[in-house]
């Protein structure tokens, strides 16, 4: 085979393979399209967000509860101390009237 035949053979028109178009489109497609996000990633994100919200709500409820408790004790203390004053004075007066 001479050079001319070799060139003719090398430059001979050949049809592309059937999956050629698909392969070309695949290679030029954006990376994200080639590798779709797995569905569980989305679920994991939603779960993490829900947990974060729940933890925040729990923390706030705890803060509110502790604050309410402190206020209850303070309120009882104030009310009781004033009742104590009244009772002491009543006792003092009754003591005087008895003696």
């Amino acid at each position: 085979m001479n050079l001319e035949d070799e060139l003719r053979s090398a430059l001979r028109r050949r049809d592309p393979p059937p999956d050629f178009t698909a392969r070309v489109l695949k290679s030029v497609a954006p990376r994200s399209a080639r590798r779709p996000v797995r569905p569980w990633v989305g679920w994991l994100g939603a779960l993490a967000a829900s947990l974060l919200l729940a933890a925040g709500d729990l923390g706030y409820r705890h803060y509110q509860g502790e604050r309410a408790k402190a206020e209850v004790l303070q309120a009882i203390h104030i009310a009781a101390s004033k009742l104590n004053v009244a009772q002491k004075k009543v006792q003092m007066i009754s003591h005087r009237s008895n003696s």
Partner: protein
Amino acid sequence: MKAAGLLIGCLLFAAAAPAQQVKWNVEKLAARASNNVDIELNGSLLRLATGFLSDTDKDEAQAKKLISGLKGIYVKNLEFKQPGEYSEADLKGFRASLRAPDWTRIVGVHSTEEGENVEVYIKNEGKSIAGLAIIATEPKELTLVNIVGNIDLDALSDLGGQLGIPNVTVDKKK
């Protein structure tokens, strides 16, 4: 039919309406106070607090028992730098709400030496006590207390000596 529906609606509304706090309207005084303690605990906050009060700590357990029948605790404590920052007229509104037949004054003490006055009122609802109000005045301090709800006087008596609560005996036959 419509009248019956209206009546049922009114009854449901009355049943759902929260027990009312006695209004004291001392906001102007609070602005002049050097120290202002304002505690407002409605039924839902009291229920929330109940969950945080210990059963093992004696004081907290007693407080828990005491508040279990309550619908609200409201306390206003004002301290002033100078005597005479408030007058009897400032208490007119609150005192006016504590009139008979709903309210009965069970204790009223007045000390000219110390200038300390304490008045204790209870609200009667049938045979039970549905509320407690205290007006305590000193030259530089004013304290108003309103407890709404069925107060268990035995529980209150149990707290005598703890948290400073004395044994208060009230004639329940009234």
